């Protein structure tokens, strides 16, 4: 698979929703150790609404679809996750505006836009023990894959691995951003919930696309 078309992207986001909803309780548990235990709920809520509104989402092109999805996520994801995931989707939408097919390089552009969107809103850096510690390495992996000429499935594989490794590394970080920062040193040894979730999501998505 060299490129990803609108239909594929719609399926990927649909599957992403399934993964999040299935893992709702697990994601909450991840957030319980140093956070307030609602992360799974917050994200699942938005994706559940996405499924409710599914028929009404634009499917004209990747950009239009991601923009509509981003609006629902912004409104319905709870807590910090609404603006974080919402701005990620809307930034990605901007980057894919008008496109009904994207290459691995364009997918990397989209991920980088998502990172920038999240940073604009939340002001976090690599190492701050947030989901960016999984998402930034994923974007880097996609960029590398594009430069190496890998296809989308291989890029997804590399991206998922990068997310898992990034999430793993959050274990040794003391949180700076988000609620885990309130427990300071006590968040050591525990990974960040958002980063771990991205590891799970990207891994499952690769399995799904690879068939």
């Amino acid at each position: 698979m060299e490129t990803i078309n609108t239909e594929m992207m719609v399926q990927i986001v649909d599957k992403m929703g399934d993964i999040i909803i299935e893992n709702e309780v697990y994601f909450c548990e991840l957030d319980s150790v140093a956070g307030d235990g609602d992360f799974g709920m917050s994200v699942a809520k938005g994706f559940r609404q996405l499924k409710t509104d599914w028929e009404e989402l634009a499917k004209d092109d990747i950009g239009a679809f991601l923009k509509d999805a981003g609006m629902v996520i912004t409104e319905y994801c709870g807590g910090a996750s609404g603006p974080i995931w919402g701005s990620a989707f809307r930034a990605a939408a901007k980057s894919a505006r008008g496109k009904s097919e994207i290459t691995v390089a364009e997918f990397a552009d989209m991920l980088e836009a998502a990172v920038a969107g999240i940073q604009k809103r939340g002001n976090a850096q690599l190492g701050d023990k947030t989901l960016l510690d999984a998402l930034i390495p994923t974007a880097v992996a996609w960029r590398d894959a594009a430069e190496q000429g890998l296809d989308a499935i291989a890029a997804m594989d590399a991206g998922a691995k990068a997310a898992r490794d990034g999430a793993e590394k959050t274990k040794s970080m003391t949180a700076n951003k988000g609620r885990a920062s309130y427990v300071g040193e006590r968040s050591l040894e525990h990974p960040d919930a958002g980063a771990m979730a991205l590891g799970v999501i990207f891994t499952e998505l690769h399995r799904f696309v690879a068939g």
Partner: protein
Amino acid sequence: MKKLINNPESLVVEMCEGMAYAHPDKLEFKKRHKLMMRKNPAKDKVVLISGGGSGHEPAHAGYVGEGMLDVAVCGDVFASPSTIQVYNAIVDTETDAGTLLIIKNYSGDIMNFEAAAEMAEDDDDIKVAKVYVNDDIAVKDSLYTVGRRGVAGSVYVHKIAGAAAEAGKSLEEVTAVAQKVIDNVKSIGFALTSCTVPAKGTPTFKLEETEIEFGVGIHGEPGVARQAMKSADELAEECVDLLAKDLPFNAGDEVAVMINGFGATPLQELYVFNNSVYRQLAEKGIKVHNTLVGNYMTALDMAGASVTLLKLDDELKAYLAAPVDTVALKGV
């Protein structure tokens, strides 16, 4: 989990409707965006909007009314309301005097309130000011963290900014006095039990009979340290020592004190604790000008309490004493 509810999904809306039914003279609930609105606010005053996750009852809807807030934006339990909700609150209450958002310093609240403010300013030309409440001294304030949480001190910000707005002050003046409260208010809390988030159904953390979590916030997160349970006097000493050092509060200072229950602590214990805190303050020569004892900023069914001190000057005293008529605060 044994809770007097129907189900976690409809909880916030049912609660807000139950509140509006109980206080039809004061409150109006707009269900679409979960906005608890003040009935008949003045048309030409600065608009005060606060809010945040639910689970802190009576906050924030209990502070909507004469002399305090115009809108409380209600999120789900412990989850910031969305950008869209806050945006609608701003747009629905627009006046010429402008709008002040009272934001508790949590990443979720900050992101959603700020994004909403940008939308209202950019798309609707509404003048929006913001203050960030960060009174919780449990968290070290450093360049490397998101800074301190906003907890029970918010009530004083609502009260005093509300009085200034009611007095017809400008957006700049109301913002300045809100910031003055923030600069002079400090809180510290501890939990005897964890709370149970309804959607999760089990306690966020487990404490033994002999343990407490010291330095907890209002979202059921664990505190900064697990400690052995102590007497009310010992806990009062620990809290007052930390608070006094922080601002600092010194002998001769006059303060407002809030002994805040987290939801499951009986008033009996809060008054015993107030007795302990009062005597600690007296020992330090700090004079209590005004006291609030009760459930003002809770964390669902958590047992425990927080102590808030606000250093007063004549301006703050006057605004604190100004008339107020809300569900949770009437007269001070």
